[in-house]
C-alpha cells in the first residue's frame, strides 16, 4: 500500500478550520503535541500556530491551526486570515493541501454553515465530528454513513479531549489521494450563472475563482477591504451582477446563505436523529444561576474576587521566592567579582532587569490559568453577556471586559487579549484605555506613597485610599473610552452577536499548554524590552562617575546622567510640587513602575535594602526643601499617586501596543494622551489643593 503520493515530495499541508468553541485547538494539540511553532502572520497581529505530526504510515505532515471563524464572509482580522489562507491569497503562505473541518456534533447545523463554504473552495475536505459524546448525552444520534454520503467527504467521529478517534483521523489524513468534495450546496440557477460569469472576469491565476466569485457576489456594500483585493474591473462586474440579481428578485446577500442552510437542513434531516424535549439541559440549569438577576451578579463578582485573590495573594509566595533567588544570585556575583562597573552592570542592570520581569511570572501564569478556565468552560461568554449593558454605555462591547480585567494584573496580556474583538476601532479603543487599569506594578508605588501619606492611620483608611486609586483608574479608562468613541474613533456601538456555548469541563492539558505558550510570549515581549531598558537606565544612573571616589550612592546618582535629567525635568514638574529627586524616580519608572521604589531608595541614600518600606518612608518624610518645608506634603503624595494611576510609564506596554497595532502612531498617541492626563491630574490635585488652602 502506497503511503504517500510519490510525486508529492513535501509534507502534506493540513489546515484546521472551524467555528470558535468547536474543539479545534484540542485536536491541534492532540495531533502535534509540543511540536508547535507560535508566531504571527506577516503584517497582521493574528496568531499563527503551526505544528508537525506524522500520518499513520509515519509520513510527515504539517498542521496549521486557522483562527476560529463563523464564515468566510469575514467580520474580523482573524477571520480574514482564515479566508486568505484558504484562498491562497496570503503572500508567503502556501495554500493548504487539505482542509480539516472541525464541527461540534452537538451543534451541527450552525457548525455546518462554514463547512458548506469550505466545500466550495475546491480543496479536499476531511470532516471531524467532534464531541460526539456530548451530542449523545443530549440525545442526538448522528448517522456517520449518511453524513459521509450526503456531504461527499470523509467524516471522522471524535472526542478530542479523550483522544477518541485520533487513530481514525490520522488514517483519514494519510489517504494517498484525497478527493475533492463530491457535493456542495446548490445555489439558485441565476445566482450560479452569475458566479460562473464573475469567475470568468477574475485573473487567470486565481486559484479558487468560483469561491472568490461567490464571496464577491455575497458582499454587502460596506466591505471595502475585501473589494480592495480585487481590480476595479472585477468590482464593477460584481456590482453589475448584484444589480442583475436584485432585478430578478434574488438578494445576493441572503440568497447564498439561505441556500446553504436549506441544503444543511436536508443533510441533517437524513443524518441526525434528535430526541426531542427532555427538560432542561445541564447548561440551562447552570445558566439559571450564572445569568440570574441576583445569583448571576454574585457568582460573577465571586469569580472575579477569587481571581484577584489568587493573582495578588497566592502569587505572593512564589514572587518572594523569585526575589530571594535573584537576591542570592546578586550575592553570588558580589562574592565572585571585585567591585567594578562590570559587577554593577550585572547586578543593577541585568539581574535587576531580568528579575523585575520574571517576578511577575507567577501572576501572569495565574491570570492565564483563570482566563483559560473561563474561556474553555464557557463562562467567558456569560461574563460578556452580563457586562454588555454596562460596556455598551461607553460604546464598547461585552468582549472588551476581559482585556480590561486582565489589565489589572498587567496591561500586556490585557492588550494581547483584545484580539478577540472583531471591530478594529473598538479593539483600538480597548487597547488605548487598558493601561489605565491599575496593574500590579503600580501596587508597590501606591503602598509606599500611602505609607508616607498616612503613616499612623488605621488599616481601613489605607485600604480605602488604595481602592480609590483603583477606582480612579477604572473611571479614567471608561471615561476615555467614551471620549474616544465619540471623537477620534467615532463609530456605532458594535453589534453584539455572540454564541453562548454550552458549559463544558475544561481540559487541564489544553489550559496548561496555553499558560506555557502565553508565559513564554510575555517573557519574550516584555522581557527583552525591559532588559534593554534596565541596562540603559543603569548606565544613566552610573555615568559619569563622581570625581570623589568616597561619594555616597546618593551623591553619585545626583551627578549622573539620570541626576542631570532629573534636574532638567525639574522646571516641568515643579508645578506638581516635585523636585529633581522625584524626577529621577519618574525617569527610572519607565522600565517598570515599581522601579520607583528602588530608585527612591538610592536617591535618599538608603543604607540597607531590607525590603521593608518603613526606613524609606521615614527618609522620605524627613526630606526637606531648601526653605525647610517638607517635600512630601499630603498634596504631593496624593498627586504622585494620581500621576502613577494615569501615566503610561511602561516601555514594554508601548512596545506591545506597537506590535499589536503595527504602527507607531497609536503607541505614541497613547503615551501622549496618558502623559497629559497624568500631568493634568497631578496638577489639579496639587495646585487645586493649595488654592483650597491645603498643603
Amino acid at each position, binding site marked *: 500500500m502506497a503511503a504517500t503520493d510519490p510525486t508529492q515530495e513535501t509534507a502534506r499541508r493540513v489546515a484546521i478550520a472551524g467555528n470558535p468553541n468547536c474543539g479545534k485547538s484540542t485536536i491541534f494539540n492532540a495531533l502535534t503535541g509540543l511540536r508547535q511553532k507560535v508566531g504571527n502572520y506577516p503584517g497582521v497581529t493574528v496568531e499563527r500556530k503551526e505544528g508537525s505530526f506524522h500520518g499513520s504510515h509515519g509520513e510527515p505532515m504539517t498542521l496549521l491551526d486557522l483562527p476560529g471563524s*463563523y*464564515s468566510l*464572509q469575514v*467580520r474580523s482580522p482573524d477571520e480574514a486570515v482564515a479566508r486568505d489562507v484558504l484562498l491562497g491569497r496570503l503572500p508567503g503562505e502556501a495554500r493548504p493541501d487539505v482542509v480539516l473541518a472541525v464541527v461540534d456534533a*452537538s*451543534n*451541527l*447545523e*450552525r457548525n455546518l*454553515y462554514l463547512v458548506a463554504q469550505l466545500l466550495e473552495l475546491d480543496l479536499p475536505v476531511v470532516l471531524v465530528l467532534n464531541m460526539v459524546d456530548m451530542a449523545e448525552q443530549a440525545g*442526538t444520534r448522528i448517522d456517520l454513513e449518511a453524513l459521509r454520503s450526503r456531504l461527499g467527504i470523509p467524516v471522522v467521529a471524535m472526542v478530542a479531549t479523550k483522544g477518541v478517534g485520533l487513530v481514525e483521523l490520522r488514517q483519514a489524513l494519510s489517504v494517498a489521494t484525497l478527493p475533492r468534495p463530491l457535493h456542495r450546496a446548490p445555489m439558485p440557477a441565476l445566482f450560479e450563472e452569475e458566479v460562473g460569469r464573475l469567475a470568468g472576469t477574475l485573473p487567470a491565476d486565481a486559484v479558487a475563482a468560483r469561491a472568490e466569485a461567490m464571496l464577491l457576489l*455575497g458582499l*454587502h*456594500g*460596506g*466591505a471595502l477591504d475585501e473589494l480592495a483585493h480585487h481590480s476595479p474591473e472585477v468590482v464593477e462586474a460584481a456590482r453589475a451582477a448584484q444589480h442583475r440579481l436584485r432585478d430578478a428578485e434574488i438578494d445576493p*446577500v*441572503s440568497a447564498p*446563505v*439561505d441556500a446553504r*442552510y436549506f441544503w444543511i437542513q436536508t443533510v441533517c434531516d437524513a443524518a441526525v436523529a*434528535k430526541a426531542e424535549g427532555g427538560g432542561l439541559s445541564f*447548561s*440551562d440549569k447552570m*445558566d439559571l444561576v450564572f*445569568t*440570574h*438577576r441576583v445569583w*448571576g*451578579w454574585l457568582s460573577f463578582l465571586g469569580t472575579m474576587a477569587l481571581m484577584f485573590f489568587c493573582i495578588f495573594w497566592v502569587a505572593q509566595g512564589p514572587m518572594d521566592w523569585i526575589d530571594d533567588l535573584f537576591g542570592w544570585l546578586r550575592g553570588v556575583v558580589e562574592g565572585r567579582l571585585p567591585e567594578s562597573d562590570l559587577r554593577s552592570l550585572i547586578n543593577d542592570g541585568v539581574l535587576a532587569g531580568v528579575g523585575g520581569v520574571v517576578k511577575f511570572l507567577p501572576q501572569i501564569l495565574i491570570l492565564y490559568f483563570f482566563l483559560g478556565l473561563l474561556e474553555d468552560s464557557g463562562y467567558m*461568554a456569560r461574563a460578556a*453577556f*452580563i457586562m*454588555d*449593558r*454596562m460596556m*455598551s454605555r461607553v460604546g464598547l462591547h*461585552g468582549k472588551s471586559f476581559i482585556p480590561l480585567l486582565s489589565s489589572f494584573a498587567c496591561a500586556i496580556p490585557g492588550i494581547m487579549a483584545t484580539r478577540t474583538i472583531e471591530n478594529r476601532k473598538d479593539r483600538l479603543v480597548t487597547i488605548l484605555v487598558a493601561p489605565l487599569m491599575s496593574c500590579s506594578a503600580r501596587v508597590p508605588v501606591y503602598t509606599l506613597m500611602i505609607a508616607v501619606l498616612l503613616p499612623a492611620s488605621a488599616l481601613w483608611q489605607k485600604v480605602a485610599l488604595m481602592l480609590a486609586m483603583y477606582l480612579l483608574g477604572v473611571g479614567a479608562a471608561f471615561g476615555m473610552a467614551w471620549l474616544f468613541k465619540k471623537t477620534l474613533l467615532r463609530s456605532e456601538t458594535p*453589534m*453584539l*452577536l*455572540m*454564541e*453562548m*456555548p*454550552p458549559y463544558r469541563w475544561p481540559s487541564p492539558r489544553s489550559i496548561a499548554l496555553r499558560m506555557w505558550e502565553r508565559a513564554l510570549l510575555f517573557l519574550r515581549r516584555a522581557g527583552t524590552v525591559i532588559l534593554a531598558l534596565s541596562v540603559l537606565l543603569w548606565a544613566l544612573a552610573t555615568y559619569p562617575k563622581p570625581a570623589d571616589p568616597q561619594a555616597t550612592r546618593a551623591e553619585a546618582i545626583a551627578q549622573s546622567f539620570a541626576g542631570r535629567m532629573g534636574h532638567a525635568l525639574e522646571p516641568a514638574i515643579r508645578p506638581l510640587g516635585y523636585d529633581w529627586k522625584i524626577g529621577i524616580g519618574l525617569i527610572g519608572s519607565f522600565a517598570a513602575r515599581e522601579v520607583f521604589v528602588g530608585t527612591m531608595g538610592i536617591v535618599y541614600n538608603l543604607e540597607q535594602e531590607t525590603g521593608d518600606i518603613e526606613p524609606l518612608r521615614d527618609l522620605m518624610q524627613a526630606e526637606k526643601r531648601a526653605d525647610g518645608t517638607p517635600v512630601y506634603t499630603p498634596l504631593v503624595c496624593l498627586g504622585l499617586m494620581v500621576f502613577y494611576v494615569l501615566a503610561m510609564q511602561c516601555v514594554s506596554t508601548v512596545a506591545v501596543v506597537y506590535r499589536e497595532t503595527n504602527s507607531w502612531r497609536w503607541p505614541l498617541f497613547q503615551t501622549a494622551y496618558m502623559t497629559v492626563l497624568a500631568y493634568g491630574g497631578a496638577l489639579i490635585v496639587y495646585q487645586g489643593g493649595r488654592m483650597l488652602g491645603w498643603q
Partner: protein
Amino acid sequence: MTAPAPASEALSGFGVGERGKVAGFALEPEQRQRLLEMGLTVGVQFEVVRFAPMGDPMEIKLRGYHLSLRKKEAAGVQVVRI
C-alpha cells in the same frame, strides 16, 4: 379568532419562553448578513431563553444552539409568533 395572516412583530418585544419564526429584517445589509450566517434565516424557528440581568442583551435558542443579541438589533428582526 380568524386572523388572515399573522402580523409580524419585532423580536425585541418577545418575552422569555415565547417562540416564533423569522419573517424578515429591517437592518443594514452588514448586520443582516451576520444574523443570517449565524443561522437566523427567514423561516427559522426560535425560542427566547432569557435576558441578561440588566435586561439587555437577550438570548435565543435556534438551530440547536444559543445566541445572544442586543434588543437594538432584535428590534430589526421581524418575527411571527407561533
